């Protein structure tokens, strides 16, 4: 399978990328690791006129601590996130989630910014960012604003990034030793979650239970009110309307959400 023809520009700096976005408009797509975009282009689900490649922007890759937060450049690859001593010590759920994406070859290419901007509700990193109460930096012509994870995922494969904004960095709280749980139900190696659950702090987040990663609010409230993990988990699917596909119908997904939430909560230490 071969993508439809397109023009290609390698951005030389973040500013250059923003200029290109402004001048090319909706006909252009940003290329990060390409492991979601290129398969869609090969299937001709999308056919952008121009690709703006961010692959050479080393300024957008890297992990650092800034006050109470870890700051992760948008072009940081999953393998580097999973292996980072800093992330493993201070946001271990995020390192674990990165290690669950696809397979080693995919993790060598895929990026955290690309995965979040793609906003697949079944993916690992959107669920992880929401569970950690993180945020992203969105840079546009007028400057940089911060978008909380709770406000970032707007719909099925849709975010609250404006068309002229570039996701430049991801921020998560530094929390060494904080308890967390992560459960991902798949039938095949290197697949997306049929249902996923990430639990950290008081948050419980579900993957693939709706058009966006969802907080299991009823279960969170029960847990905050002193309910046991098992009792809180019984409420995990409240208010969700999961889709149906070849892997699972809605009722099976709701069952999985309850079971996986219990396991994720019990996994916390």
């Amino acid at each position, binding site marked *: *399978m*071969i*993508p*439809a*023809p*397109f*023009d*290609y520009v*390698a951005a030389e700096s973040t500013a250059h990328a923003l200029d290109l976005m402004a001048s090319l408009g909706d006909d252009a797509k940003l*290329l990060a690791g*390409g*492991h979601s975009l*290129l*398969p869609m*282009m*090969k299937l001709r689900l999308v056919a952008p006129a121009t*690709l703006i*490649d961010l*692959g050479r922007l080393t300024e957008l890759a890297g*992990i650092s601590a800034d006050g109470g937060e870890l700051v992760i450049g948008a072009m940081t*690859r999953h*393998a*580097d996130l*999973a*292996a*980072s001593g800093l992330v*493993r010590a201070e946001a*271990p*759920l995020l*390192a*674990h989630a990165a*290690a669950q994406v*696809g*397979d*080693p*070859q*995919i*993790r*060598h*290419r895929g990026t955290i910014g690309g995965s979040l901007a793609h906003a697949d509700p079944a993916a690992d990193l959107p669920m992880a960012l929401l569970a950690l109460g993180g945020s992203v930096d969105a840079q546009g012509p007028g400057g940089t604003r911060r978008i909380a994870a709770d406000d970032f995922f707007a719909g099925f494969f849709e975010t609250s990034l404006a068309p002229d904004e570039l996701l430049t960095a991801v921020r998560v709280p530094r929390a060494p030793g904080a*308890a*967390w*749980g*992560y459960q991902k139900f798949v039938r095949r*190696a*290197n697949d997306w979650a049929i249902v996923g659950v990430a639990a950290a702090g008081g948050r419980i987040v579900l993957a693939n239970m709706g058009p966006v990663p969802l907080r299991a609010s009823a279960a969170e409230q029960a847990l905050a009110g002193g309910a046991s993990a098992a009792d809180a988990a019984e409420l995990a699917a409240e208010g969700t309307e999961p889709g149906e596909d070849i892997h699972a119908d809605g009722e099976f997904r709701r069952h999985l959400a309850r079971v996986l939430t219990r396991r994720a909560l019990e*996994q*916390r*230490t």
Partner: protein
Amino acid sequence: MMRVELTVNGERRSDDVEPRLLLVHYLRETCGLRAANVGCDTTSCGACTVLLNGASVKSCTILTVQAAGGEVTTAEGLAAADGELHPVQRAFRQEHGLQCGFCTPGMVMATVGLLAENPHPTEKQVREGLEGNLCRCTGYHNIVRAVLAAAGEASAGGVSAGGASAVSGASAAAGAGSANAAGEQVRP
């Protein structure tokens, strides 16, 4: 068309390519290197696995223009100039780590990448490290044996001594940040 320069199996090349030319088609059609196979064509099976700057990648999901300036190693680039097989190739032969052979170049390249990041994997780490490579003959047991045998040989100094620049390149490119990325599990 765009002019791209990259190094393939140690040879510097300069070619005019369409932006949409996938790396696997560049390797097979432009360079005439047919080891990397197009299997699933959907980033699942790993038959097209090559090393890009030392890290294993699926060449069906990379544009040639994205790889510009980089170093690509295919299975053809593993053996020494005198034809002596790379230790990973030798181990696959000795342990009969193949049946029909279609997945084998990808398996071998994924293994070279895996051992560069984690020279002494456990059997579990080998199975997880080859998660991105499918063998539809289901000959996984002998493949895992071959990887462990190659790792054993590496312990004795075999891997670093043999083959082209693939292994040393992988170590350098993996860098401090991604050491052990393929093998380790992070647990709470």
